[in-house]
């Protein structure tokens, strides 16, 4: 009788940390997207991320994990009954494979991937999606697309097992998958009122940078955690994540410098995300120098790709397609070009530039194509069905006035004394009675102790902009 498997405390500790890191990426994404959005829709933008945490965590626990990682049924999904409803539950000896990690921990780790993948999609539909429509879409897409695709790629399904495509941490299952769905939703919902004629510039660039920092920090758990154990592969996944991302910043800002004459922080942040996306599938399969090259290429190509929406006329508000879909494809194909068994024994066919021919490249392209089409078609159908039933788009009036007020009855910023300051506006409107706010106009009134007042006019400062002749 074989010895009962024992828990590997080192691996388990690292995966618990990684799980928390991956969870942090979603609030990071909320800040990244929120800052890129206009101020009147910042809360709705962030709500779409936070609601993913709420909804997807529960779906994952009850049936998502079973579909994704239950025993393979037909190459497409896992045994639904295996962990359905989490049953009464697992024994202490229930570990995930040979890793020595309790199944509970693996379940939690993969839960965070499902959450952020759904949240990523929301960037393409900012300012105009009904929150109820979004929740319904998130529920449907996670169930019909993410859970099965995770199975196909990682859980023993046909993409990983039969086609032999490699996706270490989610280039295909996460980024291409979410990017294709984002494109579908952008098409279903249509353009924002005024786009592209009106400028819809980011309202808070420091928030974009903060979100990028949190994403980057969490991404170490995403990539290096995906090894599930702690070994040299964990190390190279970590290292490649860093150097590819660094190079992608440079790639993006070089394009900006040449094209617009100025490198920008939004560009550097976007470049970092593009690099993180691109290295995700390949981080454990390529040498660090190839990761640097990947970063430069992904940063530059994604910088050019975000302009596609203006040429093709679809309003992917925050460039989910340009960054995640395009970046995901580049990283996925990179394995076919630069993947080598010298880095990981998981690489069965050497990449093209290691003399392995086109076998791996073909498998990578086929897997990316299958997931792109599958996700796009189902997301489009789901979005279309929601639009035709409960409605997916808010009214034009709600969109112009601001979706935060219309859908959530709150606003991100209330800096005007007339508005109640500090968020009191809604109470004041509802007649709940906050003290009337004191005007805080910048008035300097010279009031000497002795009653001598030289020319000292006091006029209320007018907060309105005015044209200045001169």
């Amino acid at each position, binding site marked *: 009788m074989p010895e009962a498997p024992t828990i590997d405390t080192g691996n388990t500790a690292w995966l618990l940390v990684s799980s928390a890191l991956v969870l942090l990426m979603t609030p990071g994404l909320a800040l990244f997207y929120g800052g890129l959005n206009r101020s009147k829709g910042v809360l709705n933008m962030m709500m779409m991320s936070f609601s993913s945490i709420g909804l997807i965590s529960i779906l994952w626990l009850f049936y998502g994990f079973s579909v994704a990682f239950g025993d393979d049924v037909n190459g497409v999904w896992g045994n639904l009954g295996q962990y359905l409803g989490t049953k009464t539950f697992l024994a202490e000896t229930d570990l995930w494979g040979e890793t020595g990690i309790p199944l509970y921990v693996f379940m939690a780790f993969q839960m965070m991937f499902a959450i952020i993948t759904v949240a990523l999609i929301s960037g393409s539909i900012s300012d105009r999606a009904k929150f109820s429509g979004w929740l319904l879409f998130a529920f449907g897409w996670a169930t019909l697309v993410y859970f099965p695709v995770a199975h196909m790629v990682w859980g023993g399904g046909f993409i990983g097992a039969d086609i032999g495509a490699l996706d270490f941490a989610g280039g295909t299952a996460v980024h291409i998958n979410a990017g294709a769905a984002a494109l579908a939703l952008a098409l279903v919902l249509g353009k924002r009122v005024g786009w592209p004629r009106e400028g819809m510039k980011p309202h808070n660039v420091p928030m974009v940078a903060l979100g990028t920092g949190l994403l980057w920090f969490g991404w170490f758990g995403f990539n290096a955690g995906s090894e599930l154990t702690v070994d040299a592969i964990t190390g190279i996944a970590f290292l490649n994540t860093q150097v590819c991302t660094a190079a992608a910043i440079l790639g993006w800002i070089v394009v900006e410098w040449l094209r617009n004459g100025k490198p920008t922080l939004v560009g550097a942040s976007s470049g970092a995300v593009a690099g993180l996306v691109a290295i995700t599938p390949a981080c454990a399969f390529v040498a660090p120098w190839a990761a640097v090259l990947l970063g430069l290429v992904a940063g530059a190509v994604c910088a050019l790709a975000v302009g596609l929406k203006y040429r093709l006329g679809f309003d992917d508000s925050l460039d989910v397609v340009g960054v995640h879909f395009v970046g995901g494809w580049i990283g996925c194909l990179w394995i076919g070009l630069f993947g080598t068994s010298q880095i990981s024994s998981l690489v069965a066919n050497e990449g093209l530039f290691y003399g392995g021919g086109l076998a791996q490249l073909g498998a990578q392209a086929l897997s990316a194509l299958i997931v792109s089409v599958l996700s796009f078609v189902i997301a489009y159908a789901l979005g279309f069905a929601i639009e035709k039933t409960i409605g997916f788009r808010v009214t034009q009036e709600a969109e112009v006035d601001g979706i935060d007020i219309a859908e959530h009855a709150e606003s991100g910023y209330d800096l005007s004394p007339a508005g109640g300051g500090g968020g009191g506006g809604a109470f004041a409107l509802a007649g709940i009675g906050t003290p009337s706010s004191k005007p805080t106009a910048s008035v300097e009134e010279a009031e000497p102790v002795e009653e001598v007042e030289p020319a000292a*006019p006091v006029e209320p400062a007018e907060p309105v902009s005015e044209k200045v002749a001169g």
Partner: protein
Amino acid sequence: MKLVTAVIKPHQLDGVKEALQALGVAGLTVSEVQGYGRQKGHTEVYRGAEYTVEFLPKIRVEVLTDEIDVDKVVDAIVTAARTGKIGDGKVWVTAVEDVVRVRTGEHGLDAL
């Protein structure tokens, strides 16, 4: 009585304030405003998309003064606000019919 209104570059405010204080003008009103003149605005670029920002941040300074002192006040502002570069701003003078000090109800020159 006159109202001297000046629209100046934000970083010239300290110099203007000091110049007016040196004249004995103890009170002034300052507000942040936006606008453009001959220099127009500037262009911002986000992910390759260009946005034209027409209105530039400026500071509006307002001083109520006696008619006798008005030229000195205008000269002080112009001298202190000048950098010689485009966008330095404008100063104009308008007539004021009456002024009331809120605290005491005094009118006219007494209220200055």
